């Protein structure tokens, strides 16, 4: 029998011993991986954000503007201190993330993220959190910062000429 020629009639035979054993092993592996993924989604601490709502770029821009006007840090334009227990808002647009957010270490926050123009990627460097910012959708990221410092946000979805300079900031106090 050759892979390059038609097989002789009657090739539909039971799997040989080793093939059967191997198939069993890989099916078990797939089932175990599936169980871990499902289990982690229910019980794990770090999961993909699930909260989202639909908002046109105009609607979301207004939310960001209202939020910025209300909580802006005096003397630091474009920097906002998110009050404890309140949600933060951030807009990704060509080619920046605005505003910069100040958060308190150890407190839980939800940051709503959307995009004004094209798809952008939201990546907090050194933290390995990478999600998509899409126009028309606001995505709620739940984070509890645990170490003070300034965190750089870079865009990791190609978004045109200024892509490599597209950054933002989260400052944890």
């Amino acid at each position, binding site marked *: 029998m050759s892979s390059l020629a038609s097989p002789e009639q009657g090739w539909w035979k039971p799997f040989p011993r*080793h093939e059967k054993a191997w198939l069993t092993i890989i099916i078990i592996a797939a089932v175990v991986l599936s169980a871990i993924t499902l289990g*982690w989604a229910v019980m794990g601490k770090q*999961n993909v954000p699930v909260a989202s709502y639909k908002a046109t770029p105009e609607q979301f821009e207004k939310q960001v503007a209202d939020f910025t006007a209300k909580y802006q840090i005096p003397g630091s334009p474009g920097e906002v201190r998110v009050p404890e227990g309140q949600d933060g808002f951030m807009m990704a647009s060509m080619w920046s993330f605005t505003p910069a957010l100040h958060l308190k270490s150890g407190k839980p926050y939800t940051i709503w993220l959307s995009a004004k123009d094209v798809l952008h990627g939201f990546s907090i460097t050194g933290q390995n959190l990478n999600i998509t910012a899409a126009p028309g959708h606001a995505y709620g990221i739940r984070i509890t910062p645990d170490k003070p410092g300034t965190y750089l946000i870079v865009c990791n979805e190609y978004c045109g000429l200024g892509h490599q300079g597209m950054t933002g900031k989260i400052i944890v106090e």
Partner: protein
Amino acid sequence: MAVAERVPYDYQHEFRTDSLLGLKIHLPAQTLFLANAVAAVLALAAAGAYAFLMGFTRVPAISLLSSNADGFGRVFTGHGVSALILWPIFFEVAALIFVSTILLGARIYSKKLGWLAFISMVIGGLLLESSILWGQADVGFTAYVPLVAHPVFYVGYIIFAAGALLAIANFALSLAQARADGVLKGSLPLVTYGGATAAILATVAIASGLVALVPTYLWTVGVFPSVDPIFYRTWFWGLGHTLQYVNVSAMIVAWYALAALTFKANPINEKYGRIAFTLYIFFTVPVLGHHFLVDPSLSPAVKIVGGSLFGFGLGIPSLMHGLAILGSVEIAGRRLGATGRFGWFRKIPWGEPGMATLMVSMALFAIGGWTGTIGTTEQLNLITHNTMWVPGHLHAVVVAGTTLSFMGLSYYLVPLVARRQLFSQGMARIQPYLYGAGLLIMMITMGWAGLIGVPRRVADISYAGASPDWFLPMNLLGIGIVLAILGGIFYVLNIVLTLVHGKKFQ
């Protein structure tokens, strides 16, 4: 009254008998095969040229094109289009022609259809390349709307896709005709069955791509006011993701063929490989979900079931094929007198280019399967999404796996069909190891860079010195790029010189 008797047309003069394998080769199929193979190799050469410019831009110590303004957008778009669309599809069309006609001793269904398909694909490819080189399509091969390229770019995509669909139709009709002519008796050979799997997946992929690209084209010329980014992304990945499993199926066809051609190694159970091929059709399409694991648009249930769980399922057929092929090599080794548990390993003809590509391709593809499984796991994708981990995975599966296996197969098919000896056996012997070593270094350094957060698709990662630890892996990546590009040059040069200068034989 005399009734004119219908005399069947005699096709025998359209055939020649090959002296290497004794195949009956249909001459029109032979010319079409060569045309598609040459176009594939030229597309690969273009992909390599873009790879050079892109690779040495990403290596911070070199920073060849340090910003998008220098043309980085053109380079990475060109690399994606040439390496992920043009090269594999042209080669796959050549391979489909081979397994449906030359291998069976059958004739091609329609010369005209074959050439119409080929010319459409060439025109589409040229429109794509020229719009990219003119700087009118700095959008990546994914071209996510509302990023916008010149309408010619989308027209190029659409014409190329239409041509590929015609080629697939010709493949299916050729098989039906082989059956009707009586040259194909019994079941399809395993490699033809695998080719049919690839053809079915390709039809799904291309149809899905047209759903994304036709409205987008109409948007760029002002017929539609807008195209929803999520709609585009979903249908685009119906193309982009499914196409990767066209590549995988074709790669596995190449693996089976290489094992049989170079070592007379054939799987002991025909059913095993066929069921594995069929499983690809079942598992592939939902797994486009894994491109949306961190999107705001889908529910977690859809992400986990479609992206992650079906993604794990996709590993099953690949691992089945892996066992079937390695097992066949072991049996062939034992036939040559190998003893002990691993004695057969020493019987493997490591200096035979086809066997070398088979073993290197399988080993590196296995690593790519592992990095892909990590990427398709919902929670882990949160870490790796759009980082260098992704190109690290892609280069393992599409380059070290698919591309290398296609290279290996062409070392046999091109001389067989062109009736010329391979220009340099020595170059072909070293090439798989050189290319494989380069790619292994690339996979490791890209994976490392991805895990510490280096984003993909940027010309410059300095961000005012924000992440100094990003530079080491990205600089080491350069070593891998040098070796891989040398390996690529060895291949392209060898095939081109074979076609131009190779010693003729009958």
